[in-house]
């Protein structure tokens, strides 16, 4: 498209509304209205200039602030819907979601589930919404930012009369000594930290131009942030796992490929009790029911595997470091972090039984069963031995009424023992022993297994996390914040003072905070420049009177 040549000699790109150099209105419609549309200084924006091809149409759609605001509002509304009932993430994972939502929240819960709102933030349409927002941010920023940068770089000090006359703040001052007034104004503006440019005796005082770039900087930050969030879906970038470690045991840390191991030396839970707590808290503790937890802590030792690591062999470990893992104080190593998240107190670990003769009550011997690695047979000597026929770590009866186990965690251990004795050397006697139960199976036995004691251990539950997207998230966040502050806490102010027809013409423009700009003009009154009138305010006052 052809360029538009202004009478000042500057060549403007097609679609420019105000000359980039002198500000002269270039379009007829602009000439008729009283106040100039100063948004983006009247630059030629692609979205305002072309609307023919499909690319133009898409570009124009996403560059529109109106579309952007709609996308924001839609995201806002969608996000709020996701908080009506808990997301699937936060419901107990032992239940079927379909049933859970129906039972807990009735017909609305069922509807919520059917519409997929239980997993709203991971749904394709929510992601599409956020992605469109991202596109909108990029397109709108390029559409405005690039030409705006060019025009502010190209602007000349000397402005067209029409440009000055049709600013929101405009005033004319007749003065005897123009040179003196201009000089005074110059130093006043300088004192107010304006950057001054002079040309043919005219003045352009400008301040805070960098704040105009704030929106583009913060949008860049947002895009980097969204990009980082997207990276999570690539394999290897993100690990989210859980490891349970019993006191005194060493476990391989999942996600590290068997490279790292963790030992739980001790797990500690402290509560606030009356003796060890500061006096000021006592009133509050009295009011709360139940104990208030003071600390969860795993005294952990991190190991690294040093040998080649043939599977099946005992790993050769080297101690890396010790750390007290608490909430808010994760153990960090090699991009991984281990967080104190869960625990189980007093998990059954070992059980001891004695083999007793029923009639005499005499004890033949004692066996200790490791509930995680029970031995098949315990030999008590003299022809006495106990064989574990069946072991149910978490015992229950299944639908057919047969004993079975729910899991391999010994929450409710039960055994079928075969007790061999000199009296029963061949077949042995069968006995079923569990918590609160001790039954003979086939016939009345001569011997029985008596419960003698248990040993328990605390178990710590640690979240294993690796998140390689964090650098992007942090970078995006920092850039976003810088841009936001840059755009919010400064404003771009310009004051034009020109000698025209033996007068001083003063005009001012700011992208926001007009009251502050007016105060700068008030200061110029000292130099003898009349306070320009605010035409927008005048217009509104006029309207109110009518």
């Amino acid at each position: 498209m052809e360029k538009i040549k202004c009478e000042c000699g500057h060549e403007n790109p097609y679609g420019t509304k105000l000359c980039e150099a002198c500000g002269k209105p270039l379009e007829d419609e602009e000439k008729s209205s009283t106040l100039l549309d100063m948004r983006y200084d009247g630059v030629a924006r692609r979205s305002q200039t072309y609307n023919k091809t499909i690319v133009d149409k898409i570009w124009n759609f996403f560059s529109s602030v109106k579309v952007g605001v709609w996308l924001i509002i839609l995201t806002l509304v969608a996000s709020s819907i996701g908080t009506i009932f808990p997301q699937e993430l936060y419901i107990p994972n032992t239940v079927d979601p379909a049933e859970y939502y129906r039972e807990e929240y009735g017909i609305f819960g069922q509807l919520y589930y059917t519409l997929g709102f239980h997993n709203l933030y991971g749904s394709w349409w929510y992601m599409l919404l956020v992605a469109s927002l991202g596109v909108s941010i990029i397109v709108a920023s390029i559409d405005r930012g690039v030409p705006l940068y060019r025009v502010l770089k190209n602007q000349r000090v000397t402005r067209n009369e029409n440009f000055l006359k049709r600013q929101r703040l405009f005033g004319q001052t007749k003065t005897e000594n123009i040179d003196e007034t201009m000089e005074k104004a110059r130093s006043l503006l300088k004192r107010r930290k304006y950057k001054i440019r002079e040309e043919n005796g005219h003045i352009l005082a400008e301040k805070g131009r960098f704040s105009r770039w704030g929106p583009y900087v913060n949008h860049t930050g947002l895009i980097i942030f969204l990009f980082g969030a997207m990276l999570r879906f690539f394999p290897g970038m993100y690990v989210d796992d859980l490891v349970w470690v019993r006191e005194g045991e060493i476990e391989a840390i999942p996600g590290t490929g068997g490279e790292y191991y963790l030992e739980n030396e001790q797990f500690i839970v402290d509560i606030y009790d009356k003796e060890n707590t500061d006096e000021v808290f006592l009133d509050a503790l009295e009011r709360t029911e139940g104990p208030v937890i003071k600390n969860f802590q795993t005294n952990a030792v991190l190991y690294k595997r040093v040998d080649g690591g043939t599977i099946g062999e005992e790993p050769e470990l080297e101690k890396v470091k010790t750390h007290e893992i608490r909430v808010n104080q994760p153990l960090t190593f090699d991009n991984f972090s281990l967080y104190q998240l869960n625990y189980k107190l007093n998990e059954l670990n070992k059980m001891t039984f004695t083999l007793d003769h029923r009639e005499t009550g005499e004890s033949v011997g004692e066996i200790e069963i490791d509930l995680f690695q029970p031995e098949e047979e315990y030999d008590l000597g003299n022809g006495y031995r106990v064989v574990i026929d069946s072991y149910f770590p978490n015992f229950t009866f299944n639908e057919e009424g047969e004993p079975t186990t729910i899991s391999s965690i010994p929450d409710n251990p039960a055994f079928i023992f075969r007790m061999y004795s000199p009296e029963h050397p061949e077949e042995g006697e069968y006995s079923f022993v569990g918590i609160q139960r001790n039954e003979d199976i086939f016939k009345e036995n001569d011997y029985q297994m008596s419960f003698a004691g248990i040993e328990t251990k605390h178990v710590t539950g640690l979240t294993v996390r690796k998140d390689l997207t964090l650098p992007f998230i942090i970078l995006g966040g920092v850039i976003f914040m810088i841009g936001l502050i840059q755009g919010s806490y400064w404003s771009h102010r310009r004051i034009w003072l020109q000698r025209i027809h033996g007068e001083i013409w003063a005009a001012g423009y700011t992208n926001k905070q007009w009251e502050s700009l007016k105060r700068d003009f008030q200061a110029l009154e000292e130099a003898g420049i009349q306070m320009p009138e605010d035409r927008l305010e005048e217009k509104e006052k006029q309207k109110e009177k009518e």
Partner: protein
Amino acid sequence: MVEISRTLLYIAFILYLLGTIFFAVSVTGKKWRDKDGAMTGNRWGFFGFIVTTIGFISALGYFITRWIAAGHPPVSNMFEYLTALAITLSLAFIILYLIYKTNVLGMFTLPVVMLLIAYASLFPTEVEPLIPALQSDWLAIHVSTTVLGQGILSVGAAAGFIYLARTLDFTQRGKKVFWFEFIIYTLTSLLGYILIRYIFQWMNYTAQFQYIDENGQSDEMTYHLPALIGPNEGELLTSGVMRPFINAPAWIRSDDLNTVIWSLITGLIIYFLLRLLLRKPIGARLQPFLKGIQPTVIDEVSYRAIAIGFPIFTLGGLIFAMIWAQIAWTRFWGWDPKEVWALITFLFYAAYLHLRLSRGWHGERSAWLCVIGFAIIMFNLIFVNLVIAGLHSYA
């Protein structure tokens, strides 16, 4: 130390009350101005500013002494957070007063500050020890930044409210006047709630109920207000107190519902007493006092407040929040309801700031948006904490 802290908060409350009166006099007191010219009127505003500043310093004293007493920043429960919001709101007012010298802003902001402190004091006020999740320096960093941001955004709402009171046409009854009066009604309801709770607290009123909860278990519940609505299959155990008219079904928290109904009724009574006294919509009575205010100036005040508050809120409520969440909860973002509502607040103000770029969204429309923004902040603060269960339900 806790006693000193409490006393300082009382003093602050009284000073804010004085500040309100001074600012009200400076705005409405035509008589003073007529006698001695405009200077006197201005001086009342100055007095108001001085008193408010001293009040803020006293409130800051409360905050610091309580911090020393507890050993952790006093922002860990509902009482402490709401009080902190009241303090930052007064601080935000002071900042904007320094920029724009608007007395009328004080007249409307300080009563809200007082309401917030009074409301906060109805929650348990004891100093509580910290649970493990809160034991972090990020408690001070995240919460104080967020609360400061919210305080400044709230001043924007107050300025928006003033804009509406100044410019709406109250001679024509329509949707706008209705919603404006509705804003006033929500404030009188809050006032009603505070008054009624204090009155019955002072009378030591309790009514004990035995009831059947949603799991079919028998339990007991204590009401601190006379029961209009009793719990499910409730049996009154206390003698000599009012019997409920009906009982609520089991899935409703009947004591909360009862409190809400009391607040709404008291609010309605206060509102209609006001209407009776003024014989016009409240806004129509306010408007003449506000004639001296430039709408463009107050519009800019509200925009300025949002522009100052938004980055601070974003920093505290999203950025610092994410950093802490990564440290304490293993992930920087988890779609917890409070997180989502912080995001919603962010999106809302982002939409506001973008709309300010468009023509036709300055002035009245943007004033409505500021008020809605405040409603979202309060919703996140109160409703999301108390009603929607989530990781932030400490209070």
